[in-house]
Structures are given as structure tokens and as C-alpha cells.
């Protein structure tokens, strides 16, 4: 039994025992009052003056009664209660105080033990069903604790997995940098090409790290959505223009509705999500392949759908869901520059805006990414961030 139990026990005990004593004394007092009253109205009242005079010893004056019948026996009473009643009060108060104190202190003690275990790193501890059977605020507290432990455990697992991936991904460019240096040492004439290689790898690493940090900030909830009304048609036109400027031989076909398509969201994040998908389509499509981009707005469901199709090989069937996980790249994609964060970011951003992303292989060949976004969207920034692993 902890300190809280004894504090509660003493408090409840004192409350109960004092209540007992007061109530018992009141009852006793009431009883005596009624006795006196009955005596006054029956025993003391003379049926007839003749009878009282002929037999005066049968009737006592009220003063005499007070001194004899109604007087409590002080040796066996507390105030005016019999000792047996007092003892019973003490016992019953102890039992009730104990039960009450235990029912409050026990769940708190259990919760404290589990919190200590969690603080020591054991996040697999669960309070339920030990205190969640009572269906009261304590059970809600227990369920909240269990949920917290589960989520923390998932988050830590996801982050350690991420760290493992990151260390692997950073090793590849580092290995190429070391080889560049080795090639120069082997043959100084390769200085220029090797330096260019080192510079390229440094840029890649920097880009990967900054993207990763952005995802982490976003995921940990440090970066809340700064929502404005985003004109998707203008956004798409801008992205397509940028891609064509950088890759002039790319063939992009853009179809959009005539009416304005506006969603609520954070402009630069939506831009990043869509940009990743369109650049992927250009990158993985065949040399002269066309990338078809179509924006649809369903007035009935209030949903915006963006389809991006390429004429490439697509991904293997079992990889369709996997490609949205960070650092996962399709087997056919391994010979194209990239590190597999783009689509993971897209999924993450779209889901934070209340939408979803789907990948499909097209027949006989080709690949399509479809982004669904709601136009009337509830407060997604309040949605809990999902683990993206």
C-alpha cells in the first residue's frame, strides 16, 4: 500500500466515522425525545383524579422519571451510544474507507509502475485490461496510456529503420566519392572528371538530406500546414513549364477542365508532391514517350483527381504498394538516378491534405499515378501524422 492509499484511507475513515457518530447520536437523541414524549402523554397523564389519589405510588412525576428511566448508563456509552454500536461503526468505516482508498490508489499505482517501465524503454507494456475493465475515467486513462505506448513504439521503430536506410543511402555516394579520389590517385589526368563526380555526389547528398529533414519535420508535426487556396491549374502549368525548360525533348500532354480547380493546402508542399510524380514519369518513361497529365474535378463528390501516365515499363506487381515507402525503388528503376524518397514524400503530403495516392500498371505497358484531393477539406493539420515506413 502506497502513501496515497493511507492518505485516502485516513480521510475516508475520519469522514465515515464522524458521520456515523453524529448520525447515531442524533438517532439516539430522537429516540429519547420520543420516549419522554410518550411518557408525558401516557404514563404521566392520570386517567382520573380519583385513581391518582387512591394509588399515588403507581405514577411518578416527570422529574423522577428523568432521574431514573431516561438516564443513560455512562459507563457503557460514548456520548449517548452503546459501545457495541461504536465498535461496529469503527469496523464498517475501516472496511469502506479501505475499499474506497484502494479503488482510487490502485489504478494510479499501476499506471505509475507502467510509466516507469515505459520511461526505462519498455514500450511494449500495456495497462489494459488491468484497469480498463472499470469503464470509468481510470479505464480511459489506461487506454490512453496504452495508445501512447503503442504509438511511441511505432515511431521509434520507424525512426530506427529510417536511420538504417539513411546510413545505407549515404554510404553509396560516399563510396563513389572515394572511388573518384582513387581514380585520380591512379591517374592524375582524371582530375577534372573526378572532381565533377565529387561535386555531383555532394549535391546529391545535400539534396537527399534536406528532403529527409523536411519529411521528418513534417512527420513529427513540427511543420503544420499553412493552408491557402491553391489554384491547381496554375500550379500544374507552372510545373509542366519548369520540366520542359529543364528537359526540352520531354513530351508532356496536359488536359485540364475549363473551370477553375481550387483546393485548400500548402502551396509549396502540393507543388513538391505533384512535381515528384511528373518528373518520375518523365524520368522512367521511354526515350520518346509521352507523359499524359489529366486534371479532373468532380462537382458531385467535390474531389479533385490528378492522373499522371507514362509509357514506361511500370513496376512489378508486388512493388505497387512498396514504391510509396522511402528508399524503396522498383527493380527496374535501379539504373536511373534517384534515391527513392520522392514518391514517399508525395504520399505523405497528399495524405496530410486529406487525400490519397494510388499506383497502377497499365496494359499493355505504361504506369499511372493517381492523386485524389478533397476540395472541401476538414482540418487535416489536426490529423495525427502517420508513420511513413
Amino acid at each position, binding site marked *: 500500500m502506497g502513501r496515497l492509499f493511507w492518505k485516502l484511507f485516513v480521510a475516508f475513515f475520519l469522514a465515515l466515522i464522524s458521520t456515523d457518530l453524529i448520525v447515531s447520536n442524533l438517532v439516539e437523541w430522537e429516540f429519547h425525545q420520543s420516549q419522554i414524549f410518550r411518557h408525558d402523554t401516557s404514563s404521566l397523564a392520570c386517567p382520573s383524579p380519583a385513581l391518582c389519589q387512591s394509588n399515588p405510588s403507581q405514577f411518578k412525576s416527570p422529574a423522577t422519571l428523568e432521574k431514573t428511566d431516561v438516564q443513560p448508563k455512562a459507563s457503557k456509552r460514548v456520548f449517548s451510544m452503546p459501545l457495541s454500536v461504536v465498535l461496529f461503526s469503527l469496523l464498517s468505516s475501516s472496511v469502506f474507507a479501505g475499499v474506497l482508498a484502494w479503488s482510487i490508489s490502485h489504478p494510479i499505482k499501476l499506471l505509475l509502475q507502467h510509466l516507469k517501465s515505459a520511461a526505462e524503454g519498455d514500450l511494449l507494456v500495456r495497462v489494459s485490461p488491468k484497469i480498463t475493465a472499470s469503464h470509468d475515467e481510470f479505464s480511459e486513462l489506461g487506454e490512453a496510456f496504452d495508445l501512447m505506448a503503442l504509438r511511441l513504439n511505432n515511431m521509434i521503430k520507424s525512426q530506427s529503420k529510417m536511420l*538504417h536506410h539513411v*546510413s*545505407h543511402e549515404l*554510404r*553509396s555516394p*560516399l*563510396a*563513389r*566519392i*572515394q*572511388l*573518384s579520389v*582513387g*581514380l585520380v590517385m*591512379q*591517374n592524375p589526368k582524371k582530375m577534372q572528371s573526378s572532381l565533377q*563526380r565529387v561535386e555531383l555526389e555532394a549535391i546529391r547528398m545535400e539534396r537527399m538530406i534536406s528532403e529527409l529533414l523536411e519529411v521528418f519535420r513534417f512527420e513529427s508535426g513540427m511543420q503544420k500546414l499553412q493552408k491557402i487556396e491553391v489554384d491547381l491549374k496554375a500550379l500544374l502549368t507552372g510545373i509542366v513549364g519548369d520540366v520542359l525548360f529543364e528537359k526540352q525533348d520531354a513530351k508532356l500532354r496536359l488536359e485540364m477542365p475549363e473551370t477553375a480547380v481550387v483546393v485548400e493546402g500548402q502551396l509549396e508542399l502540393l507543388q513538391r508532391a505533384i512535381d515528384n510524380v511528373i518528373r518520375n514519369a518523365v524520368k522512367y518513361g521511354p526515350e520518346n514517350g509521352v507523359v499524359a497529365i489529366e486534371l479532373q474535378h468532380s462537382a458531385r463528390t467535390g474531389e479533385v483527381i490528378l492522373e499522371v501516365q507514362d509509357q514506361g515499363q511500370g513496376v512489378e506487381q508486388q512493388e505497387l504498394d512498396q514504391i510509396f515507402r522511402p528508399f524503396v*525503388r*522498383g*527493380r527496374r528503376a*535501379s*539504373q536511373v538516378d534517384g534515391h527513392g524518397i520522392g514518391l514517399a514524400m508525395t504520399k505523405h503530403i497528399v495524405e496530410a491534405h486529406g487525400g490519397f495516392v494510388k499506383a497502377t500498371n497499365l496494359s499493355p505497358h505504361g504506369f499511372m499515378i493517381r492523386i485524389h484531393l478533397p476540395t472541401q477539406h476538414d482540418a487535416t493539420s489536426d490529423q495525427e501524422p502517420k508513420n511513413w515506413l
Partner: protein
Amino acid sequence: MSKLLLIDDDVELANMLKEFLTQEGFTVTTAHDGLTGEQYVLAGKFDLVILDVMMPGQDGLQTLRNVRQHSDIPVLMLTAKDDNEGRIEGLEGGADDYVQKPCLPRELVARIRAILRRQTSDTPKGNDIVVGQLVVSSERRKVFWVDKPIVFTSTEFSLIEILAKHAGTIVSKEDLSVKALGRPLVKYDRSIDVHLSSIRQKISEVSGGVNVIQTIYRVGYQLVRE
């Protein structure tokens, strides 16, 4: 001129490595996924395989296991894994040695040469070494339990050969590392232990559970003379 097969999904790295190794006097063929690499190993005439562990599709460890079912060609694993588990897994799967990515290209070349030297070891030909029922033939690079052959990788053979030459005496891990792996022992390196464990298991399977290799804690190993 030794022929090397390089299996790595990182095309740029593979091409740079090929360039570097060619300058060092090797003939290099590259493959960019496990399945293709496996077919090359089984079809081609290579002296050594450099195999990356993490590859999409069939990874390096699976490729190694498949290769080991048909061939005892020396295999050097390239691993970007930052844990001992990955390395040990590779060695247990039958790799001769491993190099952690990123590595100095010079070190990689030194490891390749050490493995190849063991292949063409200048051990004087002639008498087989006989220790109890174990027969180690340096000439054929083969090991027998009485007359049953035991299939060892190149590194495993080098280790058992050193122990057989010094049968009855303790050989330190440092000596084993230098003579068999061609490199000094580094802290926390468990390669020797993993190789010896594999050798023990292979001998035990053929001999019906006889353990001929004794571990002397924190010192080394010895092949027991019966």
C-alpha cells in the same frame, strides 16, 4: 590476368570500380542484379566474384547461397550494412571475405589480391597433411575425412591448412587472419570465428559429430591430434 565479376545494382559505382580495377590489371565484367550475376557465375570462367549485399529483387545473400550450391568460387562481399549481423550472415553464407562500403579502393584491391594469392598458393606440392582421420591435400586444395570429401570455400581451406600444418599447437587469431585472410586482425572482427564455426560444422557433418578443432578462449585455435 585475373577475371573478376562485379555484381552491384549501383551502375555508376560499378562502372567506376570497373575502371579502377582494370587499371590495376584485372579483367572486370559487371552485372547489375542478383539473378543476372548468378547466371554469369555459373556460366563464365571467373577467378573471383565481388558481390553487393543490398540489391533490389534477389539480394546479395540469396545470390551467394544460390552460387554456393554449385560453385566454390571465391566471393568477396561488399556491404553497406552498419551492423555485424550483415557481415556475419555473409561469411556464414560462404563468403570468403567482406569489405564495408564506403571503402578505400586500395584496400579493396588488397583484399582481392589476398584471396587470389590463396587460390594459387605456393604451398609445396607433395605429401598430404594427415591429422587423425582428417586429410588436407594442398596440391588439390581439397579436404577429406578418411576418404569422404568435404567442400570448403577458398578461405576455409586456407584456415584448415594452416591449422593442419601446426596440428597440436595453438595458432593465434592474429596469425590466422594474416596468413589466411591476408590482413591483420582488427578489433571486433569476428570473421575468423565465423569461418572456423563453419569449418567445424562441415567436418562434424561428415565425421558424425567429431570436433577436431579446439577453441582456446581469447588466444586462438588448434587442430587436435588424436
